[in-house]
């Protein structure tokens, strides 16, 4: 079991030793391992996204009492491969009136923060690319830059629907950023750190979802809105504005937006697991497997919610963020702070 637990860490160590044996200077070895880490993270993201597209359609099917994709391969497992090939083979159309540079840039830019988020996620015991001392801050800061790419995509397409969609996306993502950040504050106060590894270590005996249920629910709602997923999928609102910012994108550029969306789903679920469900900690199984299991549990929760609730109205959406989630998360921060001080005063 111990070897399964450390399979990735020993691989990393082996790679470093191998590079050193070539007589490479330390800075070069460091550079090489960074490249390997980046490739590993990208592989993790791509593999998950490809599986998630299939999973989403399967979950949606089962929740609507049908089977979902079942034609390509056993149980439709190769559906995502067929979809990916189709998207790769499609023509890359750029509208005549579009701002060509911005249009191209937006589709690339959306993917960068989506993958950058995985840098601070602890995938297992000591399996974290960069254990920043401001890990959580980094996550929120980088995550919120995705808004710019969405706005760029919507604006440069020069299409009223994509502009409407991206305006909605920006309004929604900025509004929900605030309750999201405040809901995490309770966890930070309990853990006493922004460092991801310390937050995980602080949940050794008790998961924070038990101590911070309100924060978890607030985080869950705000994260759903951040992801632009149903019931908060107004920016995409198929029935009114077709696909929002992605209207004019086709082929691989559209696939990049899709990829980023599912990569964000994984990263937001991973953050929820790290902050509320004890991260990679768990008995018997190797830590990275525990992490994946918990992340997929969170992803299932997101999908369950998406395929249950209808889309809410735009003013209700804003009302929910500013009049409900923000006060609730502020009260949660206040109560948590008071409780911590009380327990300290009582000498616990």
């Amino acid at each position, binding site marked *: 079991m111990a070897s399964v637990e450390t399979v990735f860490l020993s691989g990393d160590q082996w790679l470093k030793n191998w590079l050193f044996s070539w007589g490479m200077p330390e800075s070069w070895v460091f550079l090489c391992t960074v490249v390997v880490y980046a490739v590993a993270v990208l592989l993790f993201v791509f593999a998950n996204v490809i599986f998630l597209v299939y999973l989403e359609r399967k979950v949606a099917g*089962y*929740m*609507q*009492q049908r*089977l979902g994709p079942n034609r390509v391969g056993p149980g439709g497992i190769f559906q995502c491969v067929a979809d990916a090939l189709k998207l790769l083979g499609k023509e890359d159309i750029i509208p005549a009136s579009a701002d060509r540079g911005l249009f191209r840039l937006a589709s690339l830019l959306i993917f960068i923060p989506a993958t950058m988020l995985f840098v601070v996620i602890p995938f297992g015991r000591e399996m974290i690319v960069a254990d920043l001392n401001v890990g959580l801050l980094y996550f929120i800061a980088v995550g919120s830059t995705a808004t710019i790419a969405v706005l760029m995509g919507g604006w440069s397409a020069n299409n009223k629907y994509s502009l409407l969609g991206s305006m909605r996306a920006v309004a929604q993502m900025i509004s929900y950023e605030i309750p999201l950040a405040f809901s995490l504050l309770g966890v930070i106060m309990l853990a006493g750190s922004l460092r991801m590894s310390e937050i995980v270590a602080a949940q050794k005996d008790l998961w924070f979802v038990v101590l911070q249920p309100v924060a978890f629910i607030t985080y869950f709602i705000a994260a759903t809105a951040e992801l632009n997923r149903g019931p908060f999928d107004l920016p995409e609102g198929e029935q009114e504005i077709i696909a929002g910012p992605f209207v004019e994108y086709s082929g691989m550029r559209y696939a990049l937006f899709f990829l980023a969306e599912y990569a964000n789903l994984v990263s937001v679920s991973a953050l929820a697991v790290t902050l509320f469900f004890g991260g990679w900690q768990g008995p018997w199984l190797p830590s990275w497997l525990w992490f994946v299991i918990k992340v997929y549990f969170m992803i299932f929760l997101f999908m369950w919610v998406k395929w*249950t609730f209808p889309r809410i109205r735009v003013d209700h959406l804003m009302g929910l963020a500013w009049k409900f989630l923000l006060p609730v998360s502020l009260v949660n921060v206040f109560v948590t702070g008071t409780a911590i001080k009380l327990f300290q005063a009582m000498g616990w």
Partner: protein
Amino acid sequence: MSGVYGEGLLKGLGITIRHFFGKAITEQYPERRPKLAPRFHGLLSLDPTKCTACGTCANFCPNGVIRIKSERDEQKRRHLTGYEVNLLYCLFCGLCVEACPEGALRFTPHFELATYRRAGAIYDLYALSREAAGERRAAGG
């Protein structure tokens, strides 16, 4: 209004999770054949031994789907030589079946009638029935 705030949301989640673990209600068509009603309107079939080539069915057809070919023998009796049904125009309304005085025309449950060419949708029921009869004879000995 009864119950706690958010009760409806939980109720909805309960319904979807029950469906998730329940059975699919959709028909898995190519693997499982549909159960058709006995009087399902599929492809027409003709019994040429009963047909007198009177042409009542062709007259009743609202779309002119049916074309009958016949010839007269020495006693001036009419004999069927061809019975073409152009399914491109057929409504499957069943007026021809109702109109037939001899009960020679009826519906079969055969419904997979898609073809690659327009000509494929034109069926000669007379030839088909003779083929079927020939096969039966061959199978019988």
